[in-house]
């Protein structure tokens, strides 16, 4: 077999089964639905902020898709829950640039932690959008929450966009 284990690292397969964050939040401050029309993978994500409106207290999502997209949502939940919104934006940026790397360079383990397991996915051009699905949804949730609550809009909003080819 080729380097399929580079794509499906144990951590990714684990996350695809554990699905951290799987489930709807009761009263989310923002929600976003993201769809990959080419494959039908989709996710609906909700986020909950703390009283100050600057910390991402909880993430809940429901989704249907391949192991990469679901594992990515799970890893994102582990990584971003409890982070302040500036850090969440930085995580999204860093994850996106890792997914655009086509497997080149070193992933930023200091910031992304275990999520660097997705670095291998970036070599598979047809699967990058799978890994990005949840992150695009999170980015949109943070932007929506920031728009409705000025206290949370401290950082610059990164470029919005769909998850395809990014």
């Amino acid at each position: 077999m080729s380097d399929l284990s580079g794509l499906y690292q144990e951590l990714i397969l684990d996350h695809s089964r554990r699905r951290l964050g799987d489930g709807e939040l009761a009263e989310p401050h923002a929600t976003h639905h993201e769809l990959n029309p080419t494959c039908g993978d989709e996710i609906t994500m909700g986020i909950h902020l703390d009283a100050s409106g600057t910390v991402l207290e909880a993430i809940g999502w429901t989704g249907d898709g391949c192991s990469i997209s679901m594992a990515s949502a799970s890893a994102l939940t582990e990584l971003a829950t409890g982070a302040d919104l500036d850090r969440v934006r930085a995580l999204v940026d860093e994850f996106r640039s890792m997914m655009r790397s086509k497997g080149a360079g070193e992933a930023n383990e200091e910031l992304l932690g275990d999520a660097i397991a997705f670095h291998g996915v970036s070599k598979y051009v047809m699967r990058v959008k799978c890994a990005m699905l949840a992150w695009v949804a999170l980015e949109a949730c943070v932007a929506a929450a920031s728009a409705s609550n000025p206290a949370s809009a401290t950082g610059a909003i990164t470029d919005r966009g769909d998850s395809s080819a990014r």
Partner: protein
Amino acid sequence: MTLDPTTTVDDLLPTAIREDFPYLDQELNGHPLAYLDSAATAQRPIAVLDAERAYLEHSNAAVHRGASTLVGTSTTAFEEARETVARFVGAGPREIVWTANATDAINMVALGMADAAAGLGGPEAGVFRLGADDEIVVTEAEHHADLIPWQRLAAKTGATLRWIPVHDDGTWNIDDAASVIGPRTRFVAFGHVSNVTGFVAPVGDVVELAHRHGALVLLDACQSVPHRPIDFASLGVDFAAFSAHKMLGPTGIGVLYGREHLLDALPPARTGGSTITTVTMESASFLPSPQRFEAGTQPVSQAVALAEAVRYLDTLGMEQVHAQESALAELLVDETARIPGIRLIGPGAGIERAALASVDVPGVHAHDVGQFLDSQGIAVRVGHHCAQPLHRRLGLRATTRASAYVYTTSDEIHRFAAALAEVRGFFGVDA
């Protein structure tokens, strides 16, 4: 053709055929390529590639424009290609319209009908004018290309879109059709062979039913023309669409078949140069078919290459191709149906199906199945195959499809099945 029970697929496969397809002789992820995605696009034999190149090297010039010797040569090649394709499907050359692809061919009819409803075309276009009391009928199994154009036509004309429901295995029969097609039906469009299930529609019965109610019939023949002998005249359909790249030909060209008098009456959806008789500043009148539909520069070298693909298939013999693929279909069903934990979509053993098999591996997404097969050199299609409503009806979002063609060997089918059997283990899903 009746097969001797000891005959295998590979006995039917012409021994030298693989050498005609250089594409097949390569590795994918360290394994010999097993190309099982011909229902999406077929590979082309050297003869087809050479024919296109030879045309471009020696005969290329604008067709139907000017009066030079060169234009005579290119126009002859272009029109001879049309005659070759017409003979292949039991049509006259005036009944064959070049389009960009099969999707474009279906749109050409739907958009022309919308034009007719908007008042374009003469009294002869009346047969195409739909209104609020009329119904368009499709099936729940349609490819999006044979669904969305009719949704749009219904929205534009006020007509109602109805559909023939499918059973739990994705098939339907003439009784299902008869429960939907009735006196209000003006147009019926359906796929001859499903690109998801391999189901073969009862074309003759549906045509008879539709015509009895005065409705016209369009056949999406994308998955049938490449794989079995087809004679549109004897099938009795009014329109049909198929695509060159699924039948060993090039991309960029498809075919709209229509009965001559209907094509001559259908308003041309795309207008412009080469389609007209007389143009004033206020209006234009149009040539008969096929020129009335072929606006602008045409895919000439592609038409020449498609004609070569047709000659290649003719040399194999379409009866032979069909017999070979029937054996491959049987092998596909046998091999996949026996794998534990795999759901095979479509008609079961003993019921006719095309040489394609879509499967669901419960607990493993089709993209992951496809990636696993890909890592073993096996190229398949994953996703909804442009048939979301059918997948929804089957309780699925995506499937993994293997499809065969003239160059497919039994070994490739065995490799597909063997790899498929390993998928659940790899992803840690209990069988």
